[in-house]
């Protein structure tokens, strides 16, 4: 085993699959010789050339629409979109076309299109470079939505995305890109729809999404010192969402808190809460709680930025509040 960063692990998945399957190509701004704003493709241009590492003009709608047509005609395009904020300009293509074409063609067309790039609030990126926006992709039938939180998962989930025939929104939190984990040399795949129980416990269940996983684990370390054992679940994919694992945990703990940096209304925490109250009502010993980022456009100034993301004190307090209910 080696230690790899999140970005290196995902890049390894990409280059393995590109070597194997000549129909895979990547489009994006600066993903050719430059190797990508986040080094997602560095080194690959020399291996696979300009047709497969395709620098584009600034036309998010254009190249996503183009890749839609490509995916319908025998190739496997990957859109390396840099910041998810940019592909809002392509929502029409994504929702009206990408998500619907398998259905409208009665399964006779496939849509092996991957959209990958960064999300998240960090580093004073300000309001046009801090979005996450995954709830809207989860709301729409037709997408797979993947939010890996470490290098190991990033590689295994990206490989699964690259072998599947569904459109995948693959979201990489900026604060995790340089985080390292053990990544096996041997090939492996992580299936979609399997949450990871990243910490076992019995006092309460915390479902943490994306950047909140590490924060949840840190808070639980602190609580462990007090003898309180919290179970932490990382859903890893938000569509499909592994509700059985969450229900099983709540069955054991009776308490549930969902932590997510993104906006609360109609967010992923709402969906999890709604499913658990419907299917696990009798297991609940307390109200289901949510901890989200503040419902506001992301401000630039560091003290403001820090104020919109749940901080360690708030995370700890949220768990204590849940335990006190």
């Amino acid at each position, binding site marked *: 085993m080696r230690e790899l960063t999140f970005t290196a692990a995902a890049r390894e998945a990409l280059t393995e699959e590109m070597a194997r399957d000549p129909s895979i190509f990547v489009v994006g701004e600066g993903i050719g010789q430059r190797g990508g704003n986040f080094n997602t493709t560095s080194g690959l241009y020399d291996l696979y050339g300009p047709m497969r590492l395709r620098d584009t003009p600034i036309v998010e709608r254009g190249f996503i629409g183009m890749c839609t047509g490509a995916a319908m005609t025998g*190739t496997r395009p990957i859109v390396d979109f840099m910041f998810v904020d940019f592909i809002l300009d392509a929502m029409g293509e994504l929702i009206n076309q990408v998500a619907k074409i398998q259905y409208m063609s009665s399964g006779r067309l496939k849509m092996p299109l991957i959209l990958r790039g960064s999300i998240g609030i960090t580093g004073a990126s300000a309001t046009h470079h801090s979005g996450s926006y995954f709830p809207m992709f989860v709301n729409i039938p037709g997408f797979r939505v993947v939010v890996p939180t470490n290098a190991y998962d990033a590689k295994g989930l990206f490989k699964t995305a690259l072998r599947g025939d569904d459109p995948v929104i693959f979201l990489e939190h900026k604060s995790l890109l340089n985080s390292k984990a053990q990544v096996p040399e041997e090939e492996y795949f992580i299936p979609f729809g399997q949450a990871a129980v990243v910490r076992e416990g019995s006092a309460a269940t915390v479902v943490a999404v994306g950047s909140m996983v590490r924060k949840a684990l840190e808070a639980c370390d602190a609580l462990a010192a007090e003898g309180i054992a919290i179970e932490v679940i990382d859903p890893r994919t938000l569509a499909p969402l592994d509700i059985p694992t969450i229900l099983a945990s709540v069955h054991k703990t009776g308490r549930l808190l969902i932590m997510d940096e993104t906006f609360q209304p109609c967010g992923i925490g709402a969906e999890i809460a709604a499913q658990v109250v419907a299917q696990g009502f009798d297991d609940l010993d307390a109200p289901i709680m949510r901890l989200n980022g503040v419902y506001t456009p992301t401000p630039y100034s560091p003290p403001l930025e820090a104020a919109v993301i749940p901080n360690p004190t708030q995370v700890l307090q949220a768990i204590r509040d849940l335990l006190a209910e």
Partner: protein
Amino acid sequence: MNYLALYRQMLEIRRTEEHLAKAHQAGMIPGACHTYVGQEAIATGVCAHLTHDDAVFSTHRGHGHALAKGVPPREVMAELFGRVTGCSRGRGGSMHLFAPEVGMMGTSGIVGPCILQATGAGYSARLLNKGTVGVAFFGDGASNNGAFHEGLNLAAIWDLPVIFVCENNLYATEVPFSYATRNTDMAERASTYGMNAVSVDGNDVLAVYAAAGEGIRRARAGEGPTFLDCKTYRTRAHAEGMPSLGTYRTQEELDAWKARDPITTYRAHLVSEGIASEDEFAQIEREVVAMVEESFEFAKSSPYPDPATVAEHVYSDG
């Protein structure tokens, strides 16, 4: 050069559309229906050059494209009637015709995307060295949309084998093209992107056939995309059930274009050139009418899809 095949194809579209229009009036078509009547020469002249491996992408006015690409009239009719035998198995309707087995990669109820998707088919063709082309059919109205700008540019800079077929019928619903742009010279607009762009009489099937043939030859030879600016007119309403003239068209304009009907003028041309006889046309008419009527019966008597299947094929594994 099979002159009569072009004729037969145009007639098949016309007779199918006429049946659909009647069916719409009779309440047999539950949703919208935008006919292609008057524009038949364009789909016919372009698609005559295509194989099933070439990919066509179209728009809300797509029956003609589907038929010319080889979707059987029965499947188009059945689709508009909402039957499981329709080309989209009843999921689509008039604006969502899919028949990938013949390279009909879909029509769209949203104006614009076909331009981008055809560009993507061109990308696949180049990457995989397929020798195929992507073709987009769209209206004058789409040409002001950002998808036009972005798609044409991408095809141009990467020399993709794509044919952009703009059917300029002077109006987008009831908005005149001359209101929607200060520059109605579509070929000039397209050539600004650095691509081969040709204006053609969209009511003259031989002119369309020739221009499309040259564009497709270039595309297959790696010489990049071509834009066809086809001037035409729809002689029915924007959609069935809407007024044919409305506040925006005059009877004179409509009559003048009807006098230039692509089917009757072509027929007259073939007769006057001695290429075909009235007997041959009568024979074709009988065959097409019979086929369209058989298709209509087929569609009408086909079953509806099973509601239990409603959520199938949202994902690739089901």
